[in-house]
Every structure is written in structure tokens, then in C-alpha cells.
């Protein structure tokens, strides 16, 4: 039986190269959403895909170190909070929930600038929520199914992994 590290060497190296690129592309899609296709939802999905690929190749423990499950859930909650607070700012400034003109009137800015700020905030809220939720769902599915013994799934590794 070949060692797993040797067998999947090509996959490991290529995923190591690709994961940062996927994250970078997610950031591009997020920040470019006002000018081209994309926005918070798509960027969040791409970021979650980066974590999923990483977790599939290096295993859940490495992925958990990269993005802890509690942090994923907290990120999702943070996104909804950002979105709601943006709406509350509109409620204070313009008497209407999610009216981004309220941001402009509170900060003494042009209305279009206020709209732009509001849209960026909303997109970041969507981004956090989608990325966090999808990563949390992935972790929930990735846990070993209950009722099936470990030995069925475990590839036989020579037991030198105590430390």
C-alpha cells in the first residue's frame, strides 16, 4: 500500500497553489460587484469553495485550523448583523429601513455616495453570511456518518502518528 502523501503528491501541490488563487478571485468578485457581474453571494460561494477544496484534500483537521467551525457560524451571524445595521442607519437617517440615502444625510455626503457606501456594506454582509453558512454546512456534512465503524473508512496507515 502506497503512502497517501506520496500517492496524492500532485494533488497536494496543485491545491496548495490553487487555494490562494481561489481566495484572491473571491476578493476580486466581491470588490468588483458594482462594476461587473458578481457581488457578495458569488464571492461568498467561491470563498467557501476554497475552504471545501482545502478540506477535501488536507482533511477536516487542516481545514478546521484554517477556518474553525465556530468562526464560520460567527461569520454568518456577523454578516446578517452588518446588513441589518446598514438598514438601521437608513432608518435613523431617512425614516425608512434600508434606505441608503439615510447614510448620506447622516454623514453629510452626496446621496449617490451614500448609496454607494450602503451597497458596499450590504454586499459585505451578504458575503460574510454566505461564506460562513456554506462552510458551516460543509463541516456539518463532513463529519463521519454515525453508525459506521472507523475501520471501514480508514486507509491503513502505519501507526507512527502518535505525536
Amino acid at each position, binding site marked *: 500500500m502506497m503512502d*497517501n*502523501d506520496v500517492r*496524492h*503528491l500532485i*494533488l*497536494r501541490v496543485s*491545491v496548495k497553489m*490553487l487555494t490562494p*488563487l*481561489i481566495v484572491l*478571485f473571491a476578493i476580486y*468578485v466581491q470588490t468588483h460587484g458594482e462594476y*461587473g*457581474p*458578481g457581488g457578495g453571494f*458569488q464571492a461568498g460561494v*467561491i470563498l467557501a*469553495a*476554497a475552504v*471545501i*477544496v482545502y478540506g*477535501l*484534500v*488536507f*482533511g*477536516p*483537521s*487542516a481545514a*478546521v*485550523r484554517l477556518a*474553525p*467551525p*465556530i468562526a*464560520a*457560524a460567527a461569520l454568518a451571524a456577523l454578516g446578517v448583523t452588518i446588513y441589518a445595521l446598514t438598514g438601521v442607519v437608513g432608518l435613523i437617517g431617512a425614516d425608512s429601513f434600508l434606505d441608503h440615502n439615510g447614510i448620506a444625510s447622516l454623514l453629510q455626503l452626496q446621496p449617490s455616495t451614500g448609496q454607494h457606501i450602503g451597497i458596499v456594506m450590504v454586499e459585505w454582509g451578504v458575503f460574510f453570511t454566505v461564506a460562513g453558512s456554506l462552510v*458551516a454546512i460543509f*463541516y*456539518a*456534512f*463532513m*463529519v*463521519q*456518518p454515525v453508525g459506521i465503524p472507523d475501520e*471501514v*473508512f*480508514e*486507509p491503513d*496507515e502505519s501507526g507512527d*502518528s*502518535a*505525536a
Partner: protein
Amino acid sequence: MPLALSLGLIFSMALVFYRLARGPTIYDRALAATSLSTKTILLIAAVSYFQNRHQWLDIALVYALVGFAGVVALVKFLQYRALHTPLSRHPHDPAPVVDLGDG
């Protein structure tokens, strides 16, 4: 030229689709799906050039970048019948202990 390129790509997609639908093995289907995805990237790129919309290339970029997540998951599942087994030990990973407990 644009028409010939697009129609040729569509035609090769249809050819590969036959292998996708027929199988016979799961590996054949995965291979056909990958090939179809590559041809789709090319089709989007061609159409985006000829319609003069470079924004469409973002979609092809998505498929080129994250499209292999599904194949990795499939291959992993076919080998280990589970998704949680690491395919490769991470360099900083001392012991194969997984605790997703209090997530």
C-alpha cells in the same frame, strides 16, 4: 470563423455528452463531465469575444478555478467512501485526529 468555432464546440460537447449519458463506468462519466466543462469554458470565451463582452469571461474563470472541486470530491469518495479522510497529510498536521465537536 466565430460561427464555425461556436458550432464546432457545441458539436464536440454533444459528442462528449454521449459518453456522459452512456457511461458505462463512473470514471467515464467523470471524464466526460470534465471534458464537457472544459469545452464549456471555451464556448463561453468564444461567445464573449464575438459578442464583445469581456465580463462573461469571469464565468469561464470560475469554472476554470473551482470546477475541479467536484472531481476531487468524487475521486475521494470513490476511493475511501467518505469525505472526511484526508487525501494528504498537511505538513503542519501531526496526528489524524478530527474534532468538529462544538462547532
